[in-house]
């Protein structure tokens, strides 16, 4: 049963063919079996989940005769550990937040709960979502279910591994430069980063506020759409969230894509992209052509500057966002500090890991007197150029295609020594965040036995169309998820 998709489980629950209690039990059996190796979760809530499952089953029984049940009633889901959930620990996989008990719940998580979902645990990540392999977690190393000697990607590596290993029926991650899509690609599942502003960020521990978005990690495109239906929408607590009429993101999933104009991005199929990855993506594109889509190639020349611009913008915002971890109100405090200045400097030096400190240093430098114009401001202008490139492309095309990542999952330790080579693994996903667009990674094939993700990008708020084409990729690739 744990191998069912979210949609399949929901149908069975609603038809009375299974119970939420059974679903929770099966999932925890799977967790017990595979967690010793996968280590996707930082914490799980088995007792609470069973209690919630019993209540869900009562409601399901009633709803059989009365109204339609809540859309996720009784479905066990996982959330990344940078999302606040009242009275549970939220660590961001950092020593500096160990023991921090959330005094409130993130809006997106609250929406899952209100839709009847059972939050069964919180998943591992690169510390403060900074990384592409989940190796930067200060707590544990998560393995890729396809090859436990390899990384699950990051930063939402825990959520991706948990979904791929059937340790839950779907999850929430956050994506600042590819942190949902790249681990989804590495673990052979679906990962969606919605348009900036579609999902409330309230309660998501900020990495780079103008780039962060919460989104689903799911077994199928349809599952991702079901979760998005629940978490999307305006939130008065997030000033950057959009007031728009709600949409049903599953509405177009079955429709064919005849006549849709789709372009491969030239700059993301050249140097630095593994041949096997390129081949898998091109094969998937050919398949879309056979389904009736028009496939062309487009050049987006400013993309070559996206990575540099991203690291300046993201680290600048991060340097301010992470300043609140100062040992005064919560988190790690260096007890030996004799005065406030020592308290700040020592608590932060001891509490943050190497990558976080590196990014704080870079961001602080980029904003500091004399360098602001050359780095931060310049990067924000490049961002405008990237947006304009996309804009031109979307005047012609319904969606853009590229690999989600230049390679399939790499081995532990392979890129730890060189920050820049690690950063390069986000080259295809980063421009999407800079432009605030929706992007999805769909498994499209294998490269040397490892899953390859195909990234589709659409114009802002075109999630319906994006998911429609993603479902076509899914149908065409006949990709088989791993079964542990």
């Amino acid at each position, binding site marked *: 049963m744990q191998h069912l998709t979210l949609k399949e489980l929901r149908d069975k629950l609603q038809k009375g063919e299974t119970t939420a209690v059974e679903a929770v039990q099966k999932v925890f059996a799977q967790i017990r079996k595979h967690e010793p190796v996968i280590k996707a979760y930082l914490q799980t809530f088995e007792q609470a989940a069973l209690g919630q499952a019993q209540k869900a089953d009562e409601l399901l029984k009633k709803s059989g005769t009365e109204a339609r049940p809540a859309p996720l009633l009784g479905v066990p889901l996982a959330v990344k550990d*940078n*999302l*606040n959930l009242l009275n549970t620990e*939220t660590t*961001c996989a950092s020593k500096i*937040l160990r023991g*921090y008990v959330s*005094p*409130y719940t*993130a809006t997106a998580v609250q929406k899952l709960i209100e839709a009847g979902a059972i939050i069964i645990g919180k998943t591992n990540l690169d510390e403060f979502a900074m990384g592409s392999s989940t190796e930067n977690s200060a707590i544990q190393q998560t393995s890729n279910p396809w090859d436990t000697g390899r990384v699950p990607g990051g930063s939402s590596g825990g959520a991706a591994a948990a979904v791929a290993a059937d340790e839950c029926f779907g999850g929430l991650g956050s994506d600042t430069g590819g942190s949902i899509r790249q681990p989804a690609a590495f673990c052979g599942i679906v990962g969606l980063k919605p348009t900036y502003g579609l999902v409330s*960020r*309230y*309660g*998501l*521990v*900020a990495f*780079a*506020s*103008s780039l962060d978005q919460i989104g689903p990690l799911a077994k199928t495109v349809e599952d991702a759409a079901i979760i998005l239906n629940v978490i999307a929408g305006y939130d*008065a*607590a*997030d*000033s*950057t969230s959009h007031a728009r009429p709600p949409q049903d993101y599953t509405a177009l999933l079955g429709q064919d894509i005849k006549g849709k104009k789709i372009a491969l991005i030239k700059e993301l199929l050249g140097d630095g992209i593994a041949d096997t990855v390129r081949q898998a993506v091109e094969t998937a594109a050919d398949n879309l052509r056979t389904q009736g889509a028009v496939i062309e190639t487009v050049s987006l020349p400013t993309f070559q500057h996206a990575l540099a611009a991203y690291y300046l913008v993201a680290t*600048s*915002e991060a*340097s*301010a966002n992470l*300043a*609140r*971890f*100062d040992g*005064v*109100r*919560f988190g790690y405090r260096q007890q030996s500090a004799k005065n*406030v*200045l020592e308290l*700040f400097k020592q608590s932060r030096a001891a509490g943050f890991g190497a990558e976080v400190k590196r990014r704080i240093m870079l961001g*602080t430098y980029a*904003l*500091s*007197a004399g360098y*602001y114009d050359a780095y*931060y401001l310049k990067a924000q202008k490049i961002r405008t150029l990237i947006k304009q490139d996309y804009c031109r492309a979307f005047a012609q095309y319904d969606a853009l295609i590229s690999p989600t990542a230049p390679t399939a999952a790499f081995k532990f330790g392979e890129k730890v020594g060189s920050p820049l080579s690690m950063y390069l693994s986000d080259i295809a996903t980063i421009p999407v965040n800079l432009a605030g667009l929706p992007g999805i990674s769909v498994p499209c094939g294998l490269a040397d036995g490892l899953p390859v993700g195909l990234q589709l990008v659409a114009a802002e708020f075109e999630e319906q169309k994006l998911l429609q084409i993603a479902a076509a990729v899914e149908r065409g690739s006949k990709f088989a998820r791993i079964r542990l």
Partner: protein
Amino acid sequence: MTEYETIIGLEIHTHLKTKSKMFCACSTEFGQPPNSNICPVCTGQPGALPVLNKEAVSLAIRCGLALNCTINKKSVFARKNYFYPDLPKAYQISQFDLPITQAGFVQLPLPDGTEKRVGITRAHLEEDAGKLVHQGAEGIEGATASHVDFNRSSVPLLEIVSEPDLRSAEEARAYLDKIKSILQYAEVSEANMEEGKLRCDANVSIRPVGQKEFGVKVEIKNMNSFRAVERAIKIEVERQKQVLAAGQKVVQETRSYDEAAGRTVSMRGKEESHDYRYFPEPDLLPLLIDDAWVAQVKQDLPELAEQRVKRYQEAYGISAYDARVLTLDKAVADFFDAAARLYGGDKKTIVNWLTTDVLGYLKNENLELGQTKLTPPQLVEMLGLIDNQTISGKIAKDLLVKILQTGASAQKLVEQGGLRQITDEGELQKIIQEILAAHPKQLEQYRSGKTALKGYFVGETMRRTKGQASPPLVNQLLDRLLA
């Protein structure tokens, strides 16, 4: 000896009178137990986000209008980054490049009856920090630990930055008084320094008279009253003159005013060098204000000081100068309006009593009108006693102080103290005759032509009667008895 000119610019922070905080729904109520008005947003919990209070924006617009500023259709919030235990996010959400209002001015009334125009560079919105209570010592010096209270964190502030147009400590004080008055009239803030709802930093420099370039600027902080601002500036100007006289250079720095020691002290070394690394706040989109919003605020604007000055001149024939003095403090003007409604006589009488006696008392005692016990009906009651000759003006002056202090009714004080004016001719004549008899030498001199001595006899009579004799009657009787 070089003559120097003083150049002063003030940065005034005022709380805005909102029910909830700038970026969250916590109450702004003052004087609550520590950390009882807090939430994830104003304590900088991970993941919390700010949402702007509409009323704070309306009040800022209102204040901008009262300061003759331009209201910017688009303004931008920025993060000002620095670490301090009372700053929960380690950045303050403020405005930098694009403030909500800018380029205004105020007119200062000068004692010679003229006016001076002082430019307002900008007035921008920002959030307040929390409060530190130092343990083990009076202040930060010598404290062993500090308690942090975030009740004040994220309370809306407007920072009003003046042009360097002020030329003396007295002008700076007059400007402060004027800004406070504007804030009170516009009903945007209670603007009291005691509760920290108004704070002021001063930028002070001096330059040789005739020189165009400004001298090196020093920022003075930690001034806790209007009087302190005036004194601190005077002290700092003297210090800078001495530095230059000694052939040294004034250093650009921040200095703290030490009221007890009567000096300013360099803060270098006590605070790390600041590089605030301002950048646009990604959690808030630009603040857009359309003409309709500004028009609505304009329509809701209460009667401002200038309008009241005009009304007083037109309705009561009060001089422009008196009207300005009367309207400087809104509490005083409101008092005047209430008293004028109750008093049947010439309203200028109220003006005289308020502007000379009441304001004089407040200045001497360093008090606000609201801190005294005087009410409009009490003042009017006392004026009635003067008008019906129950008491003399001189007695009234003493009475007024008692009323200000105790809030007792004038009528009762007169009865209890036997202060009623002596208007009985026979009684007074007897007293004067006794005085003349007791001073034969002075009487002799008077009669031989030294008529100025009449004043001496008036004084003696008033002294003997403890001021209760009716002065016109004393004069009349003396004229008769000395003839």
